[in-house]
């Protein structure tokens, strides 16, 4: 028989973490039939066959053991070449690149490697739901900075300066951003960089969507003058290469920081999955064309979807990257949660309420346009009907 205990065995840090708002919507939507889901945070493409095939081949050939802790050297070399080719940033594959279990693990390692108890890490909202909990789990204190829709959710350097204290250790930047799709331009990053340098901070740059930008040239935080030394660059294969389920990402950082992350990684993970690493090797060697094909396809769907949202009366800025539109629903007088819930129940369209990504996401909803054009057209039809009825 189970004994009743009053004591909780769960740590206080974990108890204090708030449950993810995404989870609630998942539960609501997953039981329903006929739902068009714009709530999905991953590509609608299946991983290219050549990548799957390369991974299958590795299994056939019996590559089923651990790799080096940091990942296959061959893969790290390809990652280094890729970072140079695409973003003009140079990393030593032997000492400055770490293959991880998704960008998720790289984020976790970055936090644990740099945070002393009580250190403050600036988190810019609305943002990916994991940042705040990961900072807290590493013993740090997340300090929130809000960006706003009127500003197209751009981070202004003054905002960072206002919250800096002598405990501030780092700043997390995500560009292109989930959920807003906002991309920070070179000059904007340079201005942020000046503050970062002035106060001797680190930047954890989540560039997982860097492959998916649609207008102009993309600048990596690490490519900004004087920022390489203070950047932990985090990316992976999930979004650009449509490999979410493979759980493969990477971090690139100056030797000292990377070795600290590797130290944790070797105890906590040993290495990223071997078969996924062989798939990633193929992705970097021969995946460029497929990435370009997918990027084009997202871009067209973005153009269609965002213009249509504006037409039916939901104001939405044109997001420069990722595959999310983040329209304002303030004109309806509903909260994000009310809007999302009613839209789901009345028209069977699932979107994610903006407030789950931070308080400044209130008044917005996140719609992923990584869905077929037919589905997007149908979703617009249903949303239009919904709005007309309100």
């Amino acid at each position, binding site marked *: 028989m189970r004994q009743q205990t009053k004591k909780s065995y769960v740590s206080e840090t974990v108890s204090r973490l708030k449950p*993810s708002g*995404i989870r609630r*919507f*998942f539960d609501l*939507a*997953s039981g329903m039939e006929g*739902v068009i*889901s714009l*709530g*999905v*945070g*991953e590509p*609608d493409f*299946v991983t290219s066959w050549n990548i799957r095939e390369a991974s299958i081949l590795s299994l056939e050939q019996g590559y089923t053991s651990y790799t080096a802790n940091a990942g296959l050297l061959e893969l790290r070399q390809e990652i280094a070449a890729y970072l140079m080719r695409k973003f003009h940033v140079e990393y030593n594959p032997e000492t400055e690149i770490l293959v991880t279990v998704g960008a998720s693990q790289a984020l976790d390692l970055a936090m644990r490697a740099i945070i002393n108890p009580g250190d403050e890490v600036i988190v810019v909202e609305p943002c*990916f*739901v*994991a940042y705040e909990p990961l900072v807290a789990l590493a013993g740090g204190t997340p300090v929130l900075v809000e960006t706003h829709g009127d500003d197209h959710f751009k981070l202004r350097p003054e905002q960072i300066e206002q919250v800096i204290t002598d405990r501030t250790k780092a700043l997390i930047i995500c560009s292109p951003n*989930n959920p807003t799709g906002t991309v920070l331009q070179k000059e904007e990053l340079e201005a942020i960089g000046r503050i970062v340098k002035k106060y001797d901070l680190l930047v954890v740059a989540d560039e997982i969507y860097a492959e998916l930008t649609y207008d102009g040239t993309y600048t990596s935080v690490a490519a900004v003058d004087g920022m390489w030394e203070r950047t932990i660059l985090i990316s992976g294969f999930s979004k650009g290469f449509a490999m979410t389920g493979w759980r493969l990402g990477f971090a690139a950082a100056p030797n000292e920081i990377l070795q600290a992350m590797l130290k944790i990684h070797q105890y906590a993970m040993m290495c990223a999955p071997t078969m996924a690493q062989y798939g990633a090797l193929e992705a970097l060697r021969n995946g460029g064309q497929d990435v370009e094909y997918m990027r*084009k396809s997202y871009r*067209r*769907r973005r*153009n*269609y979807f965002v*213009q*249509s949202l504006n037409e039916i009366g939901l104001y939405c800025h044109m997001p420069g990257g990722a595959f999310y539109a983040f329209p304002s629903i303030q004109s309806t007088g509903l909260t994000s949660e009310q809007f999302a819930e009613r839209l789901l129940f009345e028209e069977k369209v*699932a979107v*994610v309420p903006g407030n789950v990504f931070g308080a400044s996401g209130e008044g917005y909803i996140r719609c992923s346009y990584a869905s077929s*054009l037919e589905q997007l*057209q149908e979703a617009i039809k249903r949303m239009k009907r919904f709005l007309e009825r309100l």
Partner: protein
Amino acid sequence: MKLSEKEVEIIEILEKDARIPMETLAKMVELTVEETEAIVKKLEETKVIVQYAALVDWRKVDGHEGVTAMIDVKVTPKRGVGFDEVAERIYRFPEVKSVYLMSGAYDLSVVIEGRSMSEVAQFVSEKLSTLDSVISTTTHFILKKYKHDGTVFDQGDQDRRIVVSP
């Protein structure tokens, strides 16, 4: 003919779905409906777009299912790679549905599907028997399928993603 980026993009989209509404197409390429229509008209007039045709699953239409042939192929194996290399050269053709290495009188059993007997015959004479390692072929057309295993036409389209994720 030198076409602009938008024009090429319009062709790419129409090539996948010729029945896409003009308004949707226009939004996708960030042009007005009038501009888009003008481009499509130009593409039609210059015969860049030759015609709009439908992609049909004939197996669903009685009497139009197409033809299937099983071909016995004799080949010379290659040192080091055995039959694998020639098998691979054969199975890479999209019209080839399956390839088996057989024991007995011949080496490879190749299954081909085509719209007509002449299409299959053309494949055999032009593609298959001209391969260096192929010594001979014997083609058997299937007259009636009692049971057909493993061919799923609509596979790959279902969305396996969870409905809401971060």
